[in-house]
């Protein structure tokens, strides 16, 4: 059998696969991949350029359309606003006219009232002015009289003061002279008095000399000089006065 066994034959598919495998090796694949990438980029760039053109055109168209639309809308709005403005102006004008008429009327009444009040005030002021003028005239007359009398009195006072001043000056002069004289007398008297005082002090001192000595002796002797020590002296003094003592005892 083996002898007869034939070698397994490759199928076309296998052959294709093998062929493909030999054709599409890695390098070829890489080239293909590079080629694909370049092609894809070119397609994308082209499409992008086309898309950009379309987009620019669309934007330009939209701009134009939008500008036209806005212009139309604005025109309409302006038209409406102008219309409203006209109506509003007319309304306000009417209202203002009415208010002005009322204000004018009121103002006129107020002016008339104020005018009447002013006239009354003016009349009252006039009366007051007249009364004040009369009072002022009376006061001025009175003040004038008083001032005249005061001036007269002051004149008299001034005369009296002058006289008094002269008298005072005279009196002062006399006083000064009297004082000078008194000073002279006092000076003499003082000298005399000082001399007298001096004599008196000396005299007093001399009169009290015994007492001074007495105090001194008393202080010096103290209690040490007792009666026993004094006895001879006492007896001697008694002897000296014996007759007088005896005579007095006989009476």
């Amino acid at each position, binding site marked *: 059998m083996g002898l007869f066994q034939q070698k397994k034959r490759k199928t076309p598919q296998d052959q294709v696969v093998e062929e493909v495998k030999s054709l599409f090796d890695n390098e070829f694949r890489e080239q293909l991949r590079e080629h694909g990438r370049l092609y894809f980029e070119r397609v994308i760039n082209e499409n992008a350029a086309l898309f950009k053109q379309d987009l620019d055109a669309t934007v330009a168209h939209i701009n134009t359309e939008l500008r036209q639309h806005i212009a139309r809308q604005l025109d309409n709005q302006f038209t409406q606003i102008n219309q409203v403005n006209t109506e509003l102006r007319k309304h306000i004008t009417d209202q203002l006219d009415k208010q002005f008429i009322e204000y004018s009327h009121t103002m006129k009444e107020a002016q008339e009232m104020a005018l009447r009040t002013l006239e009354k005030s003016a009349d009252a002021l006039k009366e007051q002015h007249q009364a004040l003028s009369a009072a002022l005239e009376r006061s001025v007359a009175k003040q004038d009289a008083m001032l005249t009398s005061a001036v007269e009195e002051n004149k008299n006072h001034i005369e009296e003061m002058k006289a008094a001043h002269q008298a005072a000056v005279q009196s002062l002069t006399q006083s000064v002279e009297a004082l000078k004289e008194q000073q002279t007398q006092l000076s003499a008297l003082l000298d005399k008095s000082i001399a007298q005082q001096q004599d008196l002090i000396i005299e007093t001192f001399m009169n009290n000399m015994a007492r001074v000595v007495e105090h001194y002796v008393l202080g010096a002797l103290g209690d040490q000089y007792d009666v026993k020590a004094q006895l001879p002296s*006492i007896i001697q003094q*008694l002897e000296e*006065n014996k007759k007088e003592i005896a005579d007095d005892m006989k009476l």
Partner: protein
Amino acid sequence: MSEIQEKTYSDFVLPANIVSKVDLARMISDLERVDNELTEIEVRKKAGAKTDPNLTMSDQLAEFLDQNKLDIHDDHERSRLIKQLHVLKEHVPVIHVTFSAPADPESLQEIAHWMRQSVHPQVVISAGLQPSLIAGVYLRTPNKVHDLSLRTKLRQSSGLLVKELEALRGTN
């Protein structure tokens, strides 16, 4: 008749130890006490009781009796003596003597002795004290004063001091 009947108060001699009127009064009191005791003894004698004849008396009384030669055993004479001593106490002359320092009894006795010898035999002293006298005495008799103090002497001698001072002033 004893001597008491003859003697009156003016005849009595006072001993030296009786210096003041107080001493005299004390002596009279002592005599009265003795008189009482003697009377008591007499009464007891009459009653028959035993008596103790020892009598005590002060030195002043004993000396007075001795100096005046008096016997006090008779009660009538004793009574008369007491009466006379009372009269003497009333009439005894007193001299007030002021000293500059407290006087001791001996000095007082000596002064009293001198006064009885020189002035009056029955004089008594009333002693006082005045330190400002400095020294000496100040006597006051019934009608006079006798200033025998050093203070008065100094005052009386002030003229001498003045003269001395004036002499010193003249010298200076």
